[in-house]
């Protein structure tokens, strides 16, 4: 039973990584591509760490896998935001909304 759970978790983690890679390669703009980086660091890392914990329990390996997952979970979105900010500054000369520009994604 444990090995089936581990295999399923591994399949999910690797599938998300492959799909995210395809998304990065197929999208057209840098900001669209950035959206596909985060699922690898948020979903794949956590699912793979869960697989390690299921197999090894909370021993040294399990704790280190959790440490890697937590590191990627917090630092990945941070890095994505910093990259988006840099791309915005490079394209528009500043981070703030320009005159006449509307905020998208909120109503």
């Amino acid at each position, binding site marked *: 039973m444990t*090995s089936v759970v*581990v*295999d399923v978790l*591994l*399949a999910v*983690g*690797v599938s998300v*990584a*492959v799909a*995210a*890679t395809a998304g*990065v*390669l197929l999208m057209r703009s*840098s900001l669209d*591509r*950035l959206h*596909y*980086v985060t699922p*690898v*660091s948020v979903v*794949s*890392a956590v699912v*793979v*760490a869960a*697989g*390690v914990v299921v*197999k*090894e329990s909370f021993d*040294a*390996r399990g704790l*280190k*896998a959790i*440490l*890697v997952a937590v*590191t*990627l979970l917090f*630092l*990945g979105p*941070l*890095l*994505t935001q*910093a*990259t988006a*900010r*840099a*791309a915005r*500054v*490079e394209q528009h000369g500043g981070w703030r909304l320009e005159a006449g520009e509307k905020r998208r994604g909120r109503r």
Partner: protein
Amino acid sequence: MNAWLAAAAVVVATLLPVGIFSFRGPMFDRVVGLELASVLGTLALVLLAEGFDRDIYFDLAVVFAVASFAGTLAFVRFLERWL
């Protein structure tokens, strides 16, 4: 080959197109490729550590996760300020 090594092989295989992608295109597309390659590399190290049954490889994954974050962040800040 166990399931961990098979998964690691798939993740390492995805690094190849990402590496090619990082050599082409506009500047920020390359940064996105570098960012994705860092995360995929960390994931591959975790999978290889479990697949080869070696504790010490997990330490490598932890160090790689933190160091690649710092390196990519420095690179991004450099691009934002000076290029």
